[in-house]
């Protein structure tokens, strides 16, 4: 019954989406106010119906209703509740429903908070959003219905894959989707602006919150995914340049460029063409990601089951959405006036350079991802592009950007003073070089990559702090004034500071963990000890353990550092109820210098086990940096100026204050 309710809600949402796509668009063209206003109602109703459908599916999982095919395939009665719920989106159909839910959610947000949007823009944007919803609801109803029944109903389910039974991984898809689908809203606004033929500062200010929200959640989603891979997959890696990982990275890169472009449109009325194009491309990459994961065109740890029919449907959605928007773009872009002029050396100039570098980075990842696929499709000699390829192309191309990021904010709008900026950054530069030298000296080996990476991170961190110091006039004015200035800095400024700082810290983390990771694989029996660097690991033994839906062997390692007791690690090897293969849980101990990481593997004999121990220097800096970036995004989002409505309150304030 509940499943049927969910299904009917979906059908209703589908019909509503159709109405939402057509009526407001026609209304905007002809100036029919009620039809334009209908967009708001439709968007809110969409959320209600899709939400109802989603809740219905969750209810089926929570009740372990195995007569629903999806629940049978991905759940088990002994599964902990949180994973029964997470199983809702741990599969193709359910995650698609989540996708559509978030689409409706964003539409509803605009409907609710967009009171002061010009009616035509709002109507058109919500209409485009409705079209996307219509397409994906059609996709669901015709090829990926989550509410299919199984008759007769089995007594027990097949269990959610143990790898997915993890809190980090339970949250990873919702976060990612908030990001991916968030870009749908900027896309809708961009297309609406193209239809209207007008892009201006006001538009940029309205779009910015959505871009920020999408970017922030995408950042969080990617960091969560990496963190999960790091502690769950057992070899200490956090990024493998897998095509689907790349598919989440590309919209992130484009989204970053878009964020910065919007600033320029808002402040200087320039770079409009760029901004619109990036808004379309960002969502385009979201769709590409969806396509790669669900179509069966590639295989990856992330892909759902192959089904060419589904793939063709998504491809069709992709082609129509992007084809129409690129077509609109080709038509309207020449009419978008160029806007504010600026000198090459200026903040705008730096942002242009920043965007170009990000575009090149995105292009590189795209080429690396697509080329092996293209070779394989065209029947050419198959090749593969993995971490080493990106290390030689993406990394060197992004290094200049990190360098630039410290300088850009110190340049003025319209015309900047480069020598002055560099002079103010000289402290950062010197310290960075000193640190690089120190690192070069202390590390074994003569590779310059690690010192370079660390130096870049230090440069950016210090440069960002220097910029804040400048703004607050620290050391140059009285503390009272410093405090005042600090308090009144717009939140968006703090957002930038936090985000740039976060990236700097993350870069340091990435460099350390990639360059200096140490791995030791040993066959050990209880009582054995091995030493790596300053740490000694004593294998105490293995005891059986039990979880809600698994049996485990839990090993114990007493770790000493420089001879003194440091910690005890408990890696596990788990056997879940239904799945035949065991999974391992690594034991990790984090400190500011890095992680020590132990994994217990197969039994190598009657009383011996294969043990892997890793030293991962500076890895926690990665997670902290990532979290800071997301925090920066949130801080910017909370800026008063982005609350829609402030631009219009200004005249009233002026009148009363005059």
């Amino acid at each position, binding site marked *: 019954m509940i499943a049927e309710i969910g299904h009917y809600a979906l059908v209703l949402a589908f019909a509503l989406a159709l109405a939402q796509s057509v009526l407001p668009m026609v209304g905007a063209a002809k100036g029919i106010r009620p039809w334009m206003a209908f967009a708001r109602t439709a968007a809110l109703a969409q959320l209600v119906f899709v939400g109802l459908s989603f809740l219905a599916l969750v209810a089926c999982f929570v009740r372990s209703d195995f007569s629903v095919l999806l629940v049978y395939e991905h759940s088990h009665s002994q599964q902990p509740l949180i994973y029964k719920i997470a199983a809702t989106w741990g599969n193709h159909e359910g995650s698609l429903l989540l996708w559509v839910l978030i689409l409706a959610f964003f539409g509803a947000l605009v409907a609710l908070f967009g009171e002061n949007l010009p009616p035509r823009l709002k109507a058109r944007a919500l209409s485009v959003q409705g079209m996307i919803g219509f397409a994906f609801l059609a996709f669901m109803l015709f090829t990926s219905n989550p509410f299919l029944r199984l008759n007769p109903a089995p007594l027990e389910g097949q269990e959610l894959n143990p790898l997915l039974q993890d809190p980090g991984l339970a949250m990873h898809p919702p976060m990612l989707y908030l990001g991916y689908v968030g870009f749908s809203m900027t896309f809708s606004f961009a297309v609406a602006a193209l239809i209207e033929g007008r892009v201006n500062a006001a538009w940029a200010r309205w779009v910015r919150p959505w871009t920020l929200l999408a970017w922030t959640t995408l950042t969080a989603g990617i960091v969560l995914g990496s963190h999960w891979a790091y502690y769950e997959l*057992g070899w200490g890696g956090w990024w493998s340049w897998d095509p689907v990982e790349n598919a989440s990275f590309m919209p992130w890169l484009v989204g970053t460029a878009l964020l910065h472009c919007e600033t320029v449109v808002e402040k200087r009325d320039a770079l409009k063409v760029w901004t619109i194009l990036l808004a379309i491309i960002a969502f385009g990459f979201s769709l590409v990601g969806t396509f790669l994961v669900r179509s069966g065109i590639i295989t990856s740890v992330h892909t759902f089951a192959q089904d060419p029919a589904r793939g063709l449907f998504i491809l069709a959605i992709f082609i129509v959405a992007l084809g129409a928007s690129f077509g609109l773009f080709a038509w309207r872009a020449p009419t978008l006036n160029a806007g504010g*002029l600026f000198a090459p050396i200026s903040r705008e100039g730096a942002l242009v350079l920043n965007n*170009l570098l990000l575009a090149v980075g995105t292009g590189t990842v795209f080429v690396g991802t697509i080329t092996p696929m293209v070779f394989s499709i065209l029947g050419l000699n198959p090749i593969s592009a993995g971490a080493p390829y990106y290390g030689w192309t993406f990394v060197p191309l992004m290094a200049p950007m990190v360098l630039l990021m410290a300088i850009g904010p110190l340049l003025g709008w319209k015309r900047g003073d480069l020598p002055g900026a560099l002079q103010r950054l000289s402290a950062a530069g010197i310290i960075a070089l000193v640190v690089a030298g120190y690192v070069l000296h202390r590390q074994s080996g003569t590779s310059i990559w690690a010192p370079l990476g660390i130096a870049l991170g230090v440069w950016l961190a210090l440069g960002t702090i220097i910029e804040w110091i400048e703004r607050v006039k620290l050391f140059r004015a009285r503390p009272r004034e410093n405090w005042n200035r600090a308090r009144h800095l717009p939140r968006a400024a703090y957002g930038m500071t936090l985000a740039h700082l976060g990236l700097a810290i993350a870069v340091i983390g990435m460099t350390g963990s990639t360059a200096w990771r140490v791995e030791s694989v040993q066959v050990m029996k209880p009582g054995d000890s091995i030493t790596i660097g300053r740490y000694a690991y004593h294998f105490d033994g293995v005891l059986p353990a039990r979880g809600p839906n698994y049996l485990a062997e839990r090993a114990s390692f007493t770790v000493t550092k420089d001879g003194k007791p440091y910690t005890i690690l408990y890696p596990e090897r788990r056997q879940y109820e239904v799945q035949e293969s065991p999974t391992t849980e690594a034991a990790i101990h984090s400190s500011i210098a890095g992680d020590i990481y132990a994994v217990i593997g197969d039994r190598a004999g009657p009383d011996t086990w294969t043990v892997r121990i890793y030293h991962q220097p500076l890895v926690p800096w990665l997670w902290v940096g990532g979290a800071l970036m997301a925090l920066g995004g949130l801080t910017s989002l909370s800026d008063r100026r982005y609350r829609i409505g402030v631009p219009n309150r*200004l005249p009233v304030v002026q009148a009363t204050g005059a």
Partner: protein
Amino acid sequence: MTLRAVLLVLLLLGMATALDGAHPARADPTIRTADQPLADPTLEAKARALMREIRCVVCQSQSIDESDADIAANLRNIVREQIAAGKSEAQIRDYLTARYGDFVLLKPPFNRSTLVLWLAPFALALIALGAGVMTLRRSRSAGAKQPNDLSGTERERLNRLLVDDPESGGGRP
């Protein structure tokens, strides 16, 4: 524990192609290949560096250095044996590509067919540079009229437009 990652791939593949008999490694060989690190640490380090560039042929995007799969262990030992026997990295790569194709190299070889792959990023960088130069040159504001400098009549016209336009939401210039 990357055997899990491998198995996850296969499990997901299996959901749709179960009847096709999705490929291998679903069960572990009963004769497992043990890793035999080389005695000489320099040679072992050299071998490990090369391993990071060789793809695990049954995993996705992992190198044989990282992978838990049995065939990866086999390939690791082959790399070690050949390094110990004094073979060069190029020779070992050739050995593996003769058997598995260029696909087995995570760092694609630099030859005619992979030219696109290697040059594209740098070509993109050049194009971007060109685009940047073009954009910045056009935006040079050396003494150009500022967009904010409106004449009296222009300002008036602007006022009229903004006040009359129902879309502007009542904003003032």
